[in-house]
């Protein structure tokens, strides 16, 4: 009986995840973006922990903790620092204007649900539509990367994508083997580290993090 509660809560969290993705899609200010990213991480961690508790998959606790530490505390803090250091406060107007982006996003969500419908049918796990939501999150993050024309938002989009994947891994399949998850986490960490190096390099070379400076390499 309690399962249904968890189920509902996890579904709620999933919905929250999706909502946050939309919010990120519409968010112009970088600071806000980072906050939203942190919240997304939090939701993810919560859902992971819940799944772990409800299904007794103990290694999921680790990944929940990992998520909490990395995506809710470390990275946002780190990003805030970078933003402060490089004082890049506002994002410029995105490539496609917000309402259009939203519309596209909604279409994507429907597409994702349709796509995962047959799979969710046969899913043995407690969650039914979480896979769909995960895919939707991934696609929305992808969309966000496309629309943003500055370095940091793009990276945040990238990490949001990672979140979606994590959610898929945990909720739809009770988590990958631990080694894999650790590896993934390691990669993400290193990735962020490398990125931060990049930010400084780019900054000192182009004295801005605007991607429009980085369109020199092309076929002329």
């Amino acid at each position, binding site marked *: 009986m309690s399962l249904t509660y968890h189920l509902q809560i996890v579904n709620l969290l999933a919905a929250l995840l999706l909502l946050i993705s939309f919010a990120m899609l519409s968010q112009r200010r970088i600071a806000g973006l980072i906050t939203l990213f942190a919240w997304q991480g939090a939701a993810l961690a919560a859902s992971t922990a819940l799944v772990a508790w409800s299904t007794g998959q103990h290694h999921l606790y680790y990944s929940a903790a990992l998520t909490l530490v990395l995506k809710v505390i470390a990275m946002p803090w780190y990003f805030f620092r970078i933003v402060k250091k490089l004082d890049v406060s506002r994002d410029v107007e995105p490539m496609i204007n917000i309402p259009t982006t939203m519309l596209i996003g909604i279409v994507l969500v429907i597409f994702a649900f349709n796509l995962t419908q047959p*799979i969710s049918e046969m899913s043995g796990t407690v969650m039914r539509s979480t896979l769909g939501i995960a895919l939707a999150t991934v696609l929305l993050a992808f969309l966000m990367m496309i629309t943003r024309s500055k370095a940091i938002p793009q990276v945040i989009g990238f990490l949001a994508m990672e979140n979606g994947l994590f959610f898929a891994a945990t909720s739809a399949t009770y988590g990958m083997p631990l080694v894999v998850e650790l590896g993934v986490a390691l990669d993400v960490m290193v990735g962020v580290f490398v990125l931060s190096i990049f930010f400084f390099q780019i900054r000192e070379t182009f004295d801005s993090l605007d991607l429009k400076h980085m369109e020199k390499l092309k076929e002329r």
Partner: protein
Amino acid sequence: MEIYWLLGIPLTGGIFLALWGCRKHSPEINTLFSLLTLLAAALLTHRIIENGPMTVGGGWFFIDSFNVFLVALTAFVAFTTALFSRPYMRIEQEHGKLNDKRLRLYHSSYQIFIFAMLLALTTNNMGILWVAMEAATLATVLLVSLYRTPASLEAAWKYFILCGVGIALALFGTILLYFAAEKVLGSGGTALLWTHLNGVKTELEPTVLSLAFVFLLVGYGTKVGLAPLHSWLPDAHAEGPTPVSAVLSGLLLNVALYAVMRSKVLVDGALGNEMAGNLMMGFGLLSVVVAAFLIKRQTDVKRMFAYSSIEHMGLITFAFGMGGAVANFAALLHMTMHSLTKSAIFFAVGHATQKAGSQLMADIRGLIKTNPTIGWGLMLGTVAILGVPPFGVFASEFLIITTAMHDHPWATPFLLLALGVAFASIFGKVQPMVFGETESAKLPYQPALTPVFLHLGLVLMLGLFIPPYLAAWYRQAAQLLGG
């Protein structure tokens, strides 16, 4: 046992070089570690020749004839590249393009990169495979931006973002794979082990696997450089230091394709239809054609050969897509030939550009006069990569094209067109670089040409004679890939 050596040596090498810093002898040490890796690889290969495929470390590592020759190839090219990079990077340093800090970074991440690739090749776990691929990307990102020029930074950024996204999609594919697998194998560690998956591939859920394969193909395909996911490749290959271009073109692409093939085997088993094959043929053909036409407009020599890598990867993918004993055999052969030849070309090009102080082909003239060995190296390498016998690249192209004509005639016009255009473009641009008059002086130092001619010699030999055991590997591997 050898497997641990194989992985341990480059890892320690990376860490050691990172800590050791940039002393006088770090290039030599780099070479030394690569040599040791090569030895370990040789031992492993020997072992495999002795007693066939094996799983090591509780099934975490799996070596069969498919990946063992890739391991050997990787170790070999890594070693020769290290040989080449020793004098090359020295000169770069003298030219003041690099300082000690970056050289240290270069050496350590070079080793890490090798480690990542070897891990990706030898692991039995699809998840670890993904991790290793991502690690390889991360290791090379900073190498691409080593010069800190705007161009190199831009290239590195695109490389990172595009490959990152791609690899993320691949992760989703892996998750789906796991999702399908755990129903059969039960959750836990074993569900991602390729050997287990391969055992039960017929029982895996087709719809999920077809979905998974799309993600895996798009994901790893980005790293293979299949059009239209190839956009990062020319930038990354052209802007990094030449040794890095050599290993990227010669090795990383192979590893990515290896990942695709591992998943294709599973998907074919599960679906029992041509879906995966057709997708790969489509991507391959598209890449060949697009690359050929893009080659035509190049002015930067490294960029041009980067596109040529796309073309050849497309050809290999196409061949794998066709499937069947002959095509797979040809594709494996072509993998080998391409990495040997392309790296050799990059070595020669590296010296040439270093001498001319520019990568623009218009600035490089009359090599045959200023330095005959480099000139002939470049000329013969180009001829080889363009698929002119008796060089080995032709052997595989021969098999691929004839098989295509026999099994999929509709594809051959595109191949004919693309190969013709590519030939015209590349040769037409290389010829004046090698031949003709020039007033530039001779090369001031002795270039490291052993690697160039070692590779070309091998390619020439393989074009005329393939040792029986090598052929045996190829055949087994082809079998394994569903020949």
